[in-house]
């Protein structure tokens, strides 16, 4: 799969909007008996950045974690409804959650490089463990390609054998993005990837996202509305219902959501009249 698109020239042209890559239908997410996300149906388009915004507790992260079956690793957590990835029901009994997570990568709020591995190993080891690469030379290429794609190569090329935890927070986050890219996913889920970063590192990660969307589909959960309006093509607004469950209010092109939302709730939130 020619998934990796290096920055610079020689890139594939932007894909025309095609079929949605992910479809959610009537998705409910529970923690035990508590309903955290209610009745979400939406579609995610390929080669675009979809931002999920909304107040704390509105189920943004929970919904995101349903898409790569990370929600269910919490004890007693479960999902109902249907989530399709390229037409496949990922909650089908025949589907291995690990396989879903290999196709749908995730970047977390807190940068989480493996503390016992070098920078190079952080990128290549998971790909090697999953049998995606074999051989030292191939691995070296993969490390360089992914670190370049994550805009980190120039900063770390001379210290690839140092520990991943020796990097700054912003570098660690880009290292985690490189690690996710090394798995050759085609969807990247980002759960508030910049909330632990300073403004400079945030800008770097945002520019990186704009580069990456040529080759990947990105879904980002963010608290930061400016960030959503800067980077995303489409925005989904979530809110916390009176029943304590988060739900989707509306979803549409980012420009429309921020300038002419259809729903009053969205408008209130966007204009800061919320809560």
């Amino acid at each position: 799969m020619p998934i990796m698109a290096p920055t610079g020239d020689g890139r594939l042209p932007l894909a025309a909007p095609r079929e949605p890559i992910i479809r959610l239908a009537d998705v409910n997410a529970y923690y035990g008996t508590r309903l955290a996300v209610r009745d979400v149906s939406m579609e995610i388009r390929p080669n675009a950045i979809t931002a999920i915004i909304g107040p704390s507790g509105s189920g943004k992260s929970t919904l995101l974690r349903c898409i790569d079956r990370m929600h269910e690793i919490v004890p007693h957590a479960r999902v109902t409804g249907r989530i399709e990835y390229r037409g496949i029901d990922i909650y089908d009994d025949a589907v291995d959650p690990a396989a879903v997570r290999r196709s749908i990568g995730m970047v977390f709020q807190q940068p989480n490089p493996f503390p016992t591995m070098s920078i190079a190993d952080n990128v290549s080891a998971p790909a090697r463990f999953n049998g995606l690469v074999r051989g030292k030379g191939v691995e070296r290429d993969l490390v360089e390609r992914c670190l370049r794609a994550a805009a980190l190569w120039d900063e770390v090329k001379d210290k690839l054998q140092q520990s991943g935890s020796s990097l700054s927070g912003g570098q660690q986050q880009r290292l985690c993005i490189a690690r996710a890219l090394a798995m050759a996913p085609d969807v990247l889920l980002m759960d508030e990837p910049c909330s632990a970063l300073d403004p400079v590192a945030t800008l770097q990660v945002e520019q990186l996202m704009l580069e990456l969307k040529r080759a990947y589909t990105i879904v980002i959960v963010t608290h930061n509305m400016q960030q959503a309006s800067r980077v995303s093509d489409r925005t989904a607004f979530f809110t916390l219902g009176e029943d304590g469950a988060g739900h989707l209010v509306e979803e549409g092109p980012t420009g429309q959501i921020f300038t002419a939302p259809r729903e009053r709730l969205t408008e209130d939130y966007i204009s800061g009249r919320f809560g």
Partner: protein
Amino acid sequence: MLADAALVLRPTSSARRARARLVVGLAWLTLLIALVPLVAIAGYLIANGVGVLSPAFLLEDPPGDLSAVGGGIRNALFGTIEMTGTAVAIAVPIGLLIAVFNAEIGGRLAVGVRFIVDVVAALPSIVVGIFVYEVVVVAQGHFSGLAGSVALAVIMLPLIVVSTEEMLRLTPRPVAEAVRALGLSRWRSYASVLIPTAFSGIVTGVLLAISRAVGETAPLIFTALGNNFFSADLGEPMQALPLLIYRNALNSAFPAARDRAMGAALVLVALVLALNVLGRWIVARRQLTGR
């Protein structure tokens, strides 16, 4: 509401300062009391044992008659290292697997496993000796170093399980989530990420278990039995430092036996200390390089 500054900033009363001094003084006193037995034992061992130490003491076997002057503790030192090493080779893999089972699979079975582990940890070591006697020595038909190793492994196992499980549970949540989100197999997750991440704590736990096992006497009495001669064969009865100390100290009416016991005790303590220093060094080096 603002507090009255004069009230807040008033000088600490002399009674209060006296109380503080009293408590700090008490803390120092209890510390000193706690140190007394430690310093006394170390001092006593050094005073009585250092004179005995020599290269020959480490490199020669004891005389057949322990009242006789001369000879060393080679067989016991070697036996202790060989049996403890074998016990580590038995207990560490089993202990790691049990800990991973408890941490990963959990559930009702894990509660049962944890209970059994706690029971084994609480067993008096002489009972472990009797158990291994029944299971290994009787089956083999004779005492052996292997039986001694198994007994020491049983002593070490619960300590390794408890400390490893604890360390695995302390895995930072972001790391645990990264492992899941990358779709790694369970085996890979543990072998390549989770156990290495917990490595320092696991090593510390294993070292504590070794330190405990190295000094055990009771479980060796009717398993390894002891041996006045040198033997590296795990199929034969084998000498160990605690056994040598025990037999010689029992005969401390003979000055040669007493000296031998003292020297061997000092060597045993030094061995445990060296193990701990080694462990700290491994852990510190690993943290420095992050590997």
